[in-house]
């Protein structure tokens, strides 16, 4: 029966391990404000997870080097504890719990993607931990009555709304025929709802409505249907992988469609990776470097983009920009609350009304940012084959005119 002794020893070993591994960090240690974040460093959202993390880190460094956060006459520096949520909601919820109850974090930054934000929001809400998130755009996040959730971005259903309306306008106000394919995840499905609404209002018809799997590597079936039915607009949304897959296969199959509307073109670095193949793709974006918003920390979009590229070696996608903006919002709220009391900080966040390089930020009751419109850009290439994203809508910021319809593959 000695085996039982081994088990007893084992159980006590666990007990010791658990009790010694409690690392207790308070939210404000010395002159540090410690924020917690679960980020997708591995898994299907890893590339966007890294964009998010880079955005956070750049803003932390910038704010710290420019004097930090002043609360109660004292200067504090930002610091972030990261965990890897592996792009898995189950893991994300667990990590939020861990950040709050074990690491003692009292303020959180959001993860990447709507699904993961949906998993974390109930936890932060339960503990009354204010969370400023920059990458959860699903509309249903803002209808659950969450009080401690603040999103610096516009909700997902607005992403491609403009594209459909533009197509209808160019069609002389008559409804268009839409083919759409969306990944089965919270964000893309919300973009889909937005399209459904826009289609209803403009009298457009949806002729293909496909769902794509999460590990999106093939959408040839949808494209074959598109070839056969010749819709006026093709809408695809499925994070970075969706954008890459769509462009790759559209070029391979030489699919001709007058308008191609997508999301995540800049995060996927389409213009760099696929060059001329990605030309004419119309992309919804929360931000573009040529927008004329300004703030004291990053100056404007162009400066932000240049600084970001110097640090990380690539052009910042909007995921990074909005993540940086989340830190600016936190700094502003801390200083206005002049306290680290979670309730006071929450109230200060709710009263936010500011301009950052990324756009104006003002939260509605549900926590979404209502003061910042989406922009549409189009991938445009010059004769040398160098491609760039140029803003085409709204007209206020447009730096180029929309090319419509997309030339046929045989004429390119």
């Amino acid at each position, binding site marked *: 029966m000695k085996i039982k002794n081994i088990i007893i020893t084992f159980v006590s070993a666990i007990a010791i*391990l658990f009790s010694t591994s409690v690392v207790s960090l308070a939210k404000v240690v010395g002159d540090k404000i410690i924020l917690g974040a679960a980020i997708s460093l591995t898994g299907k959202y890893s590339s966007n997870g890294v964009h998010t993390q880079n955005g956070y880190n750049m803003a932390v460094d910038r704010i710290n080097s420019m004097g930090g956060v002043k609360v109660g006459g004292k200067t504090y520096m930002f610091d972030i504890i990261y965990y890897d949520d592996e792009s898995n909601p189950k893991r994300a919820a667990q990590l939020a719990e*861990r950040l709050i109850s074990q690491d003692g974090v009292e303020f959180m930054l959001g993860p990447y993607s709507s*699904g993961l934000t949906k998993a974390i929001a109930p936890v932060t809400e*339960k503990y009354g931990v204010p969370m400023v998130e920059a990458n959860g755009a699903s509309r249903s996040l803002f209808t659950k009555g969450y009080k401690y959730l603040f999103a610096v971005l516009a909700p997902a259903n607005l992403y491609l709304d403009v594209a459909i309306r533009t197509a209808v306008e160019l069609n002389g106000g008559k409804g268009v025929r839409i083919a759409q394919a969306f990944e089965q995840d919270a964000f893309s499905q919300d973009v889909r709802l937005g399209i459904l609404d826009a289609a209803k209002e403009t009298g457009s018809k949806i002729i293909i409505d496909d769902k794509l799997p999460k590990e999106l590597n093939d959408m040839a079936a949808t494209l074959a249907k598109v070839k056969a039915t010749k819709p006026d607009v093709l809408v695809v949304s499925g994070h970075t992988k969706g954008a890459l897959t769509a462009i790759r296969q559209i070029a391979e199959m030489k699919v001709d469609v007058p308008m191609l509307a997508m999301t995540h073109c800049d995060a996927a670095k389409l213009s760099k990776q696929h060059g001329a193949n990605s030309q004419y793709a119309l992309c919804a974006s929360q931000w573009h470097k040529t927008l004329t918003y300004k703030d004291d920390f990053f100056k404007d979009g162009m400066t932000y983009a240049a600084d970001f590229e110097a640090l990380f070696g690539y052009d910042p996608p909007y995921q990074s920009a909005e993540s940086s903006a989340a830190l600016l919002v936190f700094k502003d709220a801390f200083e206005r609350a002049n306290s680290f009391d979670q309730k006071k900080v929450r109230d200060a966040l709710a009263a936010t009304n500011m301009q950052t390089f990324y756009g104006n930020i003002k939260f509605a009751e549900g926590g979404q940012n209502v003061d910042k419109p989406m922009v549409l850009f189009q991938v445009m290439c010059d004769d040398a084959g160098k491609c760039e994203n140029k803003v085409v809508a709204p007209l206020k910021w447009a730096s180029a005119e929309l090319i419509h319809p997309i030339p046929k593959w045989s004429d390119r």
Partner: protein
Amino acid sequence: MNKNIILYAAILIFGIAAPFVFPAFKVQLSILCILIILAITWNVQGGEMGYNTFGNILFYGLGMYLCASVQVGMFFPLAEWTEGGGEKTFVHTPAQFFQGFAVGLAVAAIVPAIVAGLIDYSILGLRGHYFAICTLGLGVAAGEISGGIEIIGAGQGFTTPPFPKVGSLEARGEFFYFCSFAVLIFTFLAVKAIYSTRFKLVLNAIRDNEDKAEAMGIQTMKYKIIGWMISAFFCGLAGGIMGGLVGYIDSTDVAFDGREMGVFMVLMAILGGKGTLWGPVIGATVFHIFKEGFWTFFLGWQYVALGVLIVVIVIYFPEGIMGWLREKYPERFGEVVDEADRKAQVELK
């Protein structure tokens, strides 16, 4: 026997005291309980019966969706709850929450067991690799199909009812911990009781030689089906609790999570030693601690470490921790060893 009672009492006391002694680790402890349940139930097929199944995740996910759907559907229109752009907010009162959860758990246990009974007749005719691949397909298919069913949220996912405001902030964690701990004890005792009957011997006979077992007059199909129904029952319960604990159900990442949970349950049972009662318990515990440790201290390398762990298990502990102990200290497992014979064997080598 006395030592046994002391051991069980010690574990029980540890289990009850744990959330108060380590309040910050309640979620991890709850998940540990769930993992042990999954490992124990996998072992019924994989260990005792010799049928390597990847399909238990089907019952786990089914239980998760059923529990949450019943909990919501009993009081509110389910379709409006899960609707993507839904503007309405529904709030469960404490009584509704707990009633719904209790009924949900019952459904989450019974329905998967029935489903197991229905599909098993066709699947369990397959053996070996064919069976493994077929069950793998079950989990994957369930994930894709559930991702297209609007009433349970489809690709949007399903937010389970938020825990009502009762007691302190810790109430939610404690509630789910004790739920999972109670189910763990229930599972362990049930499986232990089953293992002490002829049933286990039949399962072992199927593992060792199914044709011979049939020739002996055992209706192997009947036993195989009952065995899997038992597993499905407890997997469903585990899934139901896990859904409430996580708070958000996603078709392929949380519910029918074959890539993680589905593989982990196999790994844990093998690590601890399949075909033993305690093996899966030990395996799951070691695995969970290892995993959590690596996730904390070696961020970014956790999957590399997990890969190394799997290689080490396969090469050095093919029989698992319990199997290794048994080989090393057979006397302690109540096996009589003839020293002379043992030496003779060593010399032969």
